[in-house]
């Protein structure tokens, strides 16, 4: 017959056994939250929803691409929205790496379609989205595109 203490010990062992999958699920949840934030930002750009764009980017956000004239602040990008036609098809799955509990690096290769100021965008690119968690929400701090050889 199990004593109450022994029963509790077994319960603790059972809890300990169940923790690794739980911890894994937490990482998966975090990655899902990061992907959701990035996807929401992409959609906000597609809708040209300035309010949502501002909400999903840090105030000191920087965008660097081969087609802009140098690094762009949030205001710069919003001002350039009418001149940008941007479409991307992600090749494979985005990779999300947690660099720190509140810092994530999301990267992927994408086929781009569209134009900036009438000039076509590079066809294949590597995209870096660096996100940070602020006030419990994942938001983007850096967006950087590098042209890849086709």
């Amino acid at each position: 017959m199990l004593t109450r203490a022994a029963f509790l010990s077994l319960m603790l062992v059972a809890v300990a056994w169940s923790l690794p999958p739980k911890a894994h699920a937490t990482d998966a949840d975090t990655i899902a939250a990061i992907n959701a934030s990035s996807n929401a930002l992409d959609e906000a750009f597609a809708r040209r929803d300035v309010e949502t764009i501002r909400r999903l980017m840090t105030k000191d956000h920087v965008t660097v691409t081969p087609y802009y004239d140098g690094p762009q602040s949030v205001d710069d990008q919003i001002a350039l929205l009418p001149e940008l036609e941007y479409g991307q098809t992600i090749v494979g799955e985005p990779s999300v790496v947690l660099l720190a509990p509140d810092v994530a690096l999301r990267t992927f290769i994408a086929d781009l379609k569209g134009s900036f100021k009438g000039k076509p965008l590079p066809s294949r690119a590597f995209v870096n989205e660096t996100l940070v968690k602020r006030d419990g929400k994942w938001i983007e701090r850096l967006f950087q595109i590098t042209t890849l050889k086709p």
Partner: protein
Amino acid sequence: MKIMRSRAILFSLVMLAATGMPEAKAGEAEIIAEVNKAAEALDEAFERQDADAIKQLMAPDHLAVTPYYDGPQNVAEQLATPAELHYSQTNLDEAAVTLLGPDAALRTFRARLDGTFKGKPIAPNVYVSQLLVKRDGAWMERFYQVTALADGGKKSSSCNGLVGTYLTENRAKEAGVTSRSLISLAGAHLILFTDSGEGGEAGFVPFTDGRGTWFCTENADGAHKVSATTLDFTAATADAKPGIGRLDFDLTYGAGTETLSGTATLYLLPLDADPLDPAMLKDGRQFEITGRRIGARS
């Protein structure tokens, strides 16, 4: 007991609020210095092609993405490429470091690259970002990305204000004025260079005017940086064979005074050498340059 503990925490928080801010800022400066030190040590390790130091300063899962590599490169791939990659890098602004978290930092800067990868020229004007992480108490690079910027990433309209001809004084280190020059920054990135010592001063053989390319970038604070390279030819003499001279200029423009100041580094190469190959640039001789724009009479 619980209340006491809460009060103790509250007291600590108040003390932190009262005294912690200056310390926090000082701490941040120290961390940024550590981040810069690690990044610079990695640059130097790549320059020395020191594989052990490179591995030590990069995370094992490091990734580098540049417009000249054939796609993202891991550590082993990067270590395999130095023989095919020849470039010199001139940072066009001071690196900006943002602490994204206690153990993660973003370091960014604009740079000019002169060189080749697998014999092909690499894009000269780039934006570089580095993500560094702290592992076991040491900062190391986790991710490195280079983006070639459209039109050099510069605000060409503001750089157009630098076009003109400048009369300069040139000083070798620990010496007086060694020569005077006329430097013309023209449209389409053309730079023309004429020097008072072209006839052959002490220690120099006669040489021709120089011509080359200049670029300008505007920093966030509005300052203009000029980087330029000119080539000229040195004459054959009884003691020397004909050759090529290369001058690399790194200058800052003073808008209020219409002046240029900075350095020029002179490289002398044999006539059959490739003066555009950074690997050929050795034993540069540096000069300090100050110049002012020649104005027209009104």
